[in-house]
């Protein structure tokens, strides 16, 4: 019984983090139809943005968090304007370019901050016991942030003019142009938002695990799995996907072997792709 409770607590906490990690990726994949392999790089930029501003420049932690998020947002803008926009009709080229970019960012981080992982300030410190398992306030904070962001994004997309325009562009870029939506601007906004969200995810991951130059790799794969499982372009699907994978992973760790934790999302991804490529909640890719 205690085991089961512990399982639920741990899974819920982990899934919150995963949802946060995947949400920026969902946005880009859903709207632009772009497989952004530099998502991990955005996560890295967020985490190291905080590291450089707090640990190197000595800025206050709160300012550091903002700087990290802003840096990741700007990075998103640079990616879109510098790379993606040039190759909107060549998805393979985009995959390759974003992949090379993410490797370049990893190396840049490696060469400026070193290979050793670095500590990222936590949102909250200390821990408490819940249902017989240790829960840190930082994990709780990440869980809350995750849901605040999911809620805010949901509201933004569905109830604001810009949000609806983002949806419109995701469903039909030409249709959006026909009603006077500047899809370049909307895409840019989407990339900035997605970048900033990845930045938040990077800070969350970094504060939980410490940041290293390869911090972005696992989240990238995780995001794939979550988005493919949940369905492309569906924020709701991604949240569900994140929770499914989070629960699955904790299950594997707790009841099978923690050595296998990394394989679980990969296997789910492949199975989902082969069995139900459109995902659980997905719609077909927009034209």
């Amino acid at each position: 019984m205690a085991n089961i409770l512990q399982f639920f607590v741990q899974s819920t906490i982990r899934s919150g983090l995963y949802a946060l990690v995947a949400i920026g990726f969902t946005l880009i994949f859903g709207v632009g139809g772009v497989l952004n392999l530099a998502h991990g790089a955005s996560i890295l930029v967020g985490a190291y943005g905080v590291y450089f501003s707090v640990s190197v420049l000595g800025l206050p932690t709160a300012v550091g968090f903002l700087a990290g998020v802003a840096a990741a947002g700007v990075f998103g803008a640079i990616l879109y304007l510098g790379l993606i926009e040039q190759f909107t009709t060549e998805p393979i080229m985009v995959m390759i370019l974003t992949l090379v970019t993410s490797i370049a960012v990893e190396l840049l981080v490696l060469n400026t901050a070193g290979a050793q992982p670095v500590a990222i300030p936590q949102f909250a410190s200390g821990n408490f016991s819940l249902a017989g398992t240790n829960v840190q306030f930082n994990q709780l904070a990440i869980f809350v942030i995750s849901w605040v962001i999911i809620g805010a994004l949901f509201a933004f997309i569905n109830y604001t003019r810009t949000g609806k325009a983002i949806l419109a562009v995701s469903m039909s870029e030409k249709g959006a142009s026909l009603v006077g939506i500047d899809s370049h601007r909307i895409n840019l906004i989407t990339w900035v938002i997605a970048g900033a969200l990845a930045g938040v995810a990077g800070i969350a991951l970094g504060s939980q695990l410490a940041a290293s130059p390869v911090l972005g790799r696992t989240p990238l794969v995780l995001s794939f799995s979550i988005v493919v499982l949940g369905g492309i372009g569906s924020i709701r699907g991604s949240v569900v996907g994140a929770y499914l994978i989070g629960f699955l992973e904790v299950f594997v760790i707790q009841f099978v072997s923690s050595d296998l934790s990394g394989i679980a999302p990969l296997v789910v991804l492949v199975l989902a792709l082969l069995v139900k490529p459109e995902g659980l909640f997905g719609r077909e890719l927009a034209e």
Partner: protein
Amino acid sequence: MPDNDIDVVPDDVDDEWSLSRRKAVSAAGAMGAAALAGCSDSTDDGSEASDPLADRDTLRVGVLAPLPSNNPIGASIANGAKLAADQINANDGLDGTELEVIVKDTEEAPQTGRTRYGELIRDENVDVTVGVFTSEVLLAIMDDIAGSKVPHITTGAATPEASAKVNEEYDTYKYHFRAGPINAHHLGENLVDFLDAKIDEIGWDSVAVLVEDYAWTEPVSEVLNDQLADTGVEVAMTQRYPAGTEDFNPIYNEVENSGADAAYLAMAHTGTPAVIQWAQQQRPFEFAGIHVPMQLPSYYDAVNGACAYGVTQNSATPQAAVTDTTVPFADDYNEAYGSYPVYTGYISYDAVNQYADVVSESGDVGGNAVVSGLEDSSYTGTVGTLEYYGRDDEFAHDVKYDEELVWPVFQQWQPDGEGSGTQEVIFPDDLATADYQTPPWI
């Protein structure tokens, strides 16, 4: 592209190779290397008549180190070797023969290590190679060391697989020596010895053994499994966690559930996330063992003090006068390179010095002479007295682990009250600078 287009090696003549290599030394040698190594002033040799060494203006020392410009472990290998060479050269070299150090970057990758080793042998015509961090890289070049017949002194990889090869196929692999760290089997014994000596003082009833799943830790695990319980401590859990683990939450939850008083570690690659997560999350268990990153003198600031109260084994620290030369070397190093060395620095420094000692003694730089010279050598350096196990020992050509010879220290990071921390030695007792402190949150 290489610096020279001289066809150094005849295509087919294997046996004459080392001869031709020597002839080519003066021609091919100096060109590329000096710039890279950046050390030697060429003074004229006033040589004595000792046979081959006297024929040389320079002895060329190849160094293999990972990312020597930004990895402290790699930098220490490179700089420790250079400092030794500089000091020898400043002192009229080896009877007038200068040491020249050529550094190559292994990128911590086995295949790159192999490539760079090949370059040291082919292009740089080195007389000895020193360095190598990680057992992975070392094992990848073992066969090449055998092929080149150039003596190699390992200063940063612990796997006893290398010495096993020396033992099993002596004639093939005899060129390999390990100046340090003590091999992984002895690392495990060292962990047992530490706990055996300190358990009553520290007061742990049970420990959770956490070992990263890399080649170097396999013997460590074996020894801990066999011997740890003999110290009277209860082993509450044992886990070899996968290479590349980033998230220690599940593992730490298990440690907590096991009720262990401390995590007893063997970590190199995965150490930093482990210690950061332990400290940031204020996990209710103590933290000690072999934790390679925690050996770095600059580590406290690098992780914002996350390593406070963590204990790690170490070859030497700037604070502990293991031998008479330990502290002077650390200070010289700090003066020359602006930071204190990590363990590989001490070992590499000793390795080059011991090599120089041996060569100078015999006056012969040939592979066989160096091998037998090192086998017979007893050299007291910065980490202790370096002697090597004989060819028939299972750890052939590994540095001897012995209280009187090489006997690592255990140090604890303790906050200095001014926002930083110091590496205080807590074991062995004759070198101790402080008592063990329990983390305040426990």
